[in-house]
């Protein structure tokens, strides 16, 4: 288990988790627990950057963790702007870092055209 996960908590005991599931993050195979937030699974896997802003290309990650700030949005199963902190993880999800509102490839392609 990732050292970023709390193995046993003095008050909460052991966390009730769903099945261990596989998903991909930017093409890499990652595991997490079904039903936890995508953001929690990524955090446990050591991922900090969820997206880069459109104009200034600044990195963003989890900030509010309750679905309000939109800092944590990513491309999930091809759909952009998914708030990963409140979206439950499902087996086989394809999760990608979001560049502006696109995938890295699309962003680079459009970016190169302009320059």
């Amino acid at each position: 288990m990732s050292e970023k996960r709390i193995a046993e908590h003095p008050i909460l005991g052991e966390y009730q988790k769903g099945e261990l599931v596989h998903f991909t993050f930017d093409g890499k195979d990652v595991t997490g627990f079904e039903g936890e937030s995508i953001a929690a699974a990524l955090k446990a896997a050591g991922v900090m950057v969820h997206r880069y802003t459109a104009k200034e290309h600044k990195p963003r990650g989890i900030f509010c963790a309750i679905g309000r700030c939109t800092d944590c949005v990513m491309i999930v199963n091809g759909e952009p702007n998914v708030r990963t902190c409140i979206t439950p993880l499902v087996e086989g999800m394809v999760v990608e870092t979001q560049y502006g509102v696109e995938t890295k490839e699309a962003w680079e392609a459009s970016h190169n055209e302009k320059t």
Partner: protein
Amino acid sequence: MKRHELIVIGAGPAGLSAAIEAKKSGMDVIVFDENSRPGGQLFKQIHKFFGSKEHHAKERGFKIGESLLAEAEELGVKVELNATVMGIYENKEVTVKMNGEVDHFKADKIIIATGAAENMIPFKGWNIPGVIGAGAAQAMMNLQGVKPGSKILMVGSGNVGLVVSFQLLQAGCEVAAVIDAAPRVGGYGVHAAKVARTGVPFYLSHTVIEAKGTDHVSGAVIAEVDSHFQPIPGTEKELDVDTICIAVGLSPMSQLASNAKCDMALIPQKGGNVALLSEYGETNIKGIYCAGDVAGIEEASSAMIQGRSVASHVCYSLGYITEEEFNTKYDSYQEALGKLRMGMFAPANKGRNDFTVTDEGYPISKNLLAKGYMTEEELENFPAYNYKKAGVHPIIECTQNIPCNPCQDACPKKCIKVGENITMLPQIDEEQGCIGCGLCVASCSGQAIFLMDETSDPDGVLISFPYEFLPLPEVGDKGTALSRSGAPVCEAVITDVKKTKVMDKTAVVTMRVPHEFKNSARFYKPV
């Protein structure tokens, strides 16, 4: 358009309590919450609450949430989740976004119980990954079981900052420091003291000026501030942290009330912009009410009573209860609220910093406000600390007038007395014989009660203290006794560990230390 007698917006402690009260009287009520689970902030709170029995004191927040939910379910209260209320329009029409679609509802009465939003402070690098809100830290560790970071700087010393710091320690994270731009700790002294004794330093009159790093936080620069809260050049200090947690206050989420064109006002004691309310919690628009943090930042315990109080007025105005029934209910809710709203942390005293003595006339600890822990000299002013007798007995380091009395209820021998007014300091009744059961230690929401026994063990003094960390020490373990500031004091041997069901996860650990350290050793670190 769907019709209901009452629409409650928000399924936190205020909203759920309101819905329960209304449903009990037979009203047709629906609750909307934008979250996927009900309970609002409650499920993130894992510490024992303050207050008295009627306020669920000594129960942990998430347990209170569970009982509220069970009550709501049993009554058949309808709670729509993932349902964001977008606006309130004329004639109490409400638009709700559910499953990507906008639905229209209409009600006779509306209770807004949307809670609060966290405040932010801008600083260089404040939006790089690794700078998070205190609520996010709580959600990650207490709901998802994932550590928000490994080394954390806590910005803010209010109750949220202090409680979340302690929770971070419980989750196995390191807290590098608690800082606050104000010159004094904002939250309860007992919350600060339990963090300080683990060794976390407090820097008051300090602010964060920069988050280091590009893709994630790799350090934090803090600096001292002057009396105008401006950083003083040359006082910068870099802390080795990977996470900066912001807990600089909450603001009422009152947008729905202002959109509905309720009369609003900026009231600092209430935490920001709030709707102006009648004594029954009604806005100037008849039939629209506010309850809980949205009406003024307080605590979950007061939010629950407010919810019930406001709902009882709704019941009365729709004819579900008589005027007499309403008056009885209203008076009892106001009395319960009144008890919580006394003492130096009362909402009316928010922002005040001119208290120098307690209600009893004892001088208030300056060190507690400046560093998060008390000095022995300061404690000596308090009788419940100074109490001495042969054999085991409590010593109480609770020195501010906070609304709290579980210590009094816990003692089977009635050794501890707070009295009618729950903000008075606990006193020790010397006539009663303490049996050393440790229930007061485990029940104290502020972890401020210790047991002392100077005579029963020839090899030293026995000191018992509350312990909520893992691994739990075992009898015979040797370690280091820590002082109130977390500094190593002497060697300690564990002589007893009590952990029973009524203690509810707070173990009472006893260590033996040499006599000369009886007034300084208050915590334990395994070697």
